[in-house]
């Protein structure tokens, strides 16, 4: 049996695939190594919801037979990965991270799991998450069936939510990549806090069939990985039309960053205040340096402003109304009281009281938001902002507290609301690790027009060719 060196757990997908094809190790050996690592370290970060060692070994055995017969299925063949525990896997528990659903088992697979099986990826485990993906609004990181998501860079810090497990597991090298979800920030935040590359795809590009619904008009699934290139390869495998998802855009995706426009022809819109004032002081040097790297690529950075809308109120109203319908029986039955977070329980109950007129108004304003972003993207090609203004928060810090004091708050809002704004408009976002504040990672988010993933990935690939932040490893792993 081949020894699996520690660097393998942090290798990018093309390298892992090449080493499998060259028979440096077999898919079964690789699966065993990741199974062992996931079992050994998953609990250390509260990142593991359900190990799937037998399933992984069965899939890996099939991959070895395929490789032996030269039935090659692409770069993900034989690569161990994990999924957020809101994706159903037939016959296995799917808890949605919440006690009321601890015994839940579906008899079908999520479409993304079937698609990844089709290209030979090896499912090693289900990964932890904030309960109900944060529906209702949680106050503490401990709002999860598996406990608070602990950050591999510093276990006294939060891994971010709601895709806590996917971000932490990739950062700690417990899986080669992971699938998470975002309704408003659940990919961008944990990827930023854990220092991994991640992609929130355009709404409708990836089927959500078999995923827990939180908001039918906002939910997206996307990859956490080691690089922009890895995200492109994964997206190519999981994107595509699906008649079982009413929100499906019916589009495929082919990872072809080489055909994106030359970077020197691009204009990036950004708000300097995000980096100079809204960013936490310890984060500013790294953000400044990252902006410098982008300028070196020839990209022009130009000042821009987000269209002025009450994004938070619009998103909260749409989310509240849709989650109220989705979780009506949970709330009405009283089982909502089993959730871990008091704010979330109250938020779900109160969401039943959103007036129909408010939901409709929010959806009408949303149309205006989409139109305004279309106009903005005639002036700039992409938008740039910090993934988060600072590093991961302390594990026990209330999430509805903190931020700058009124005296310190700049008058210019910058792109502070780009997460709800981007989600309301269905825009894709790429998260790129860009440095550190102390020992904790920071990230940029690059946001584009719908279905501009290849452009975002081309920018990311160039940024990562000039930096090594995405290759850094947490201490002790």
């Amino acid at each position, binding site marked *: 049996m081949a020894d699996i060196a520690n660097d393998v757990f942090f290798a990018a997908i093309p390298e892992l695939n090449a080493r499998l094809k060259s028979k440096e190790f077999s898919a079964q050996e690789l699966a065993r190594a990741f199974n062992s690592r996931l079992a050994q370290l998953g609990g250390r970060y509260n990142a593991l919801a359900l190990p799937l060692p037998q399933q992984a070994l069965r899939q890996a055995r099939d991959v070895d037979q395929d490789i032996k017969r030269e039935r090659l299925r692409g770069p993900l063949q034989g690569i161990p990965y994990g999924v957020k525990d809101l994706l159903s896997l037939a016959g296995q528990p799917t808890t949605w991270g919440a006690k009321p659903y601890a015994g839940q088992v579906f008899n079908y697979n999520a479409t993304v799991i079937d698609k990844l099986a089709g290209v030979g990826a090896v499912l090693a485990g289900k990964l932890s998450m904030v309960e109900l993906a944060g529906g209702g609004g949680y106050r503490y990181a401990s709002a999860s069936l598996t406990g608070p998501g602990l950050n591999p860079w510093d276990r006294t810090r939060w891994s971010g939510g709601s895709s806590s497990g996917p971000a932490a597991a990739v950062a700690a090298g417990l899986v080669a990549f992971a699938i998470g979800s975002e309704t408003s920030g659940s990919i961008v935040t944990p990827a930023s806090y854990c220092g991994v590359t991640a992609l929130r795809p355009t709404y409708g590009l990836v089927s959500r069939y078999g995923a827990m619904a939180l908001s039918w008009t906002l939910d997206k699934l996307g990859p956490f990985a080691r690089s922009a290139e890895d995200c492109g390869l994964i997206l190519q495998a999981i994107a595509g039309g699906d008649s079982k998802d009413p929100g499906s855009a019916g589009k495929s995706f082919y990872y072809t960053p080489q055909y994106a426009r030359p970077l020197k022809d691009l204009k990036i819109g950004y708000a300097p205040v995000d980096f100079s004032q809204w960013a936490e002081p310890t984060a500013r040097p790294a953000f400044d340096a990252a902006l410098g790297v982008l300028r070196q690529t020839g990209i022009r950075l130009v000042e821009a402003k987000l269209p002025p809308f009450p994004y938070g109120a619009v998103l*909260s109203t749409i989310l509240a109304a849709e989650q109220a319908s989705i979780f009506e029986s949970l709330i009405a039955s009283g089982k909502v009281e089993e959730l871990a977070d008091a704010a979330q329980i109250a938020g779900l109950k109160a969401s039943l009281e959103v007036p129909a007129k408010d939901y409709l108004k929010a959806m009408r304003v949303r149309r205006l938001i989409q139109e305004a972003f279309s106009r903005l993207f005639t002036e700039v090609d992409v938008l740039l902002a910090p993934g988060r203004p600072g590093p991961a928060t302390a594990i026990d810090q209330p999430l509805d507290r903190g931020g700058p004091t009124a005296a310190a708050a700049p008058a210019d809002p910058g792109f502070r609301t780009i997460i709800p704004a981007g989600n309301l408009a269905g825009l894709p976002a790429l998260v790129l690790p860009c440095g550190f504040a102390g020992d904790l990672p920071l990230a940029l988010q690059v946001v584009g027009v719908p279905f501009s993933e290849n452009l975002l990935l081309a920018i990311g690939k160039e940024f990562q060719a000039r930096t090594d932040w995405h290759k850094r490893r947490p201490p002790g792993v």
Partner: protein
Amino acid sequence: MKLTRRQLAMALTSAAALAQTTSGPPATPEDELKAARDRVKANGAALDKQDVPMAVEPAFQFKA
């Protein structure tokens, strides 16, 4: 220092945000529910201020 109305509004908004960030979490489930209901109402009030032409229909068939 003379403030424009926009700057004043921003300052007041920031002050409100500060008030939220410095007070402790609600003490009882009833207080928590009241706070959540207040947020629903505040969101509705923010939406009420948005002027939307009649021809703008809700994004029911949401496509990015």
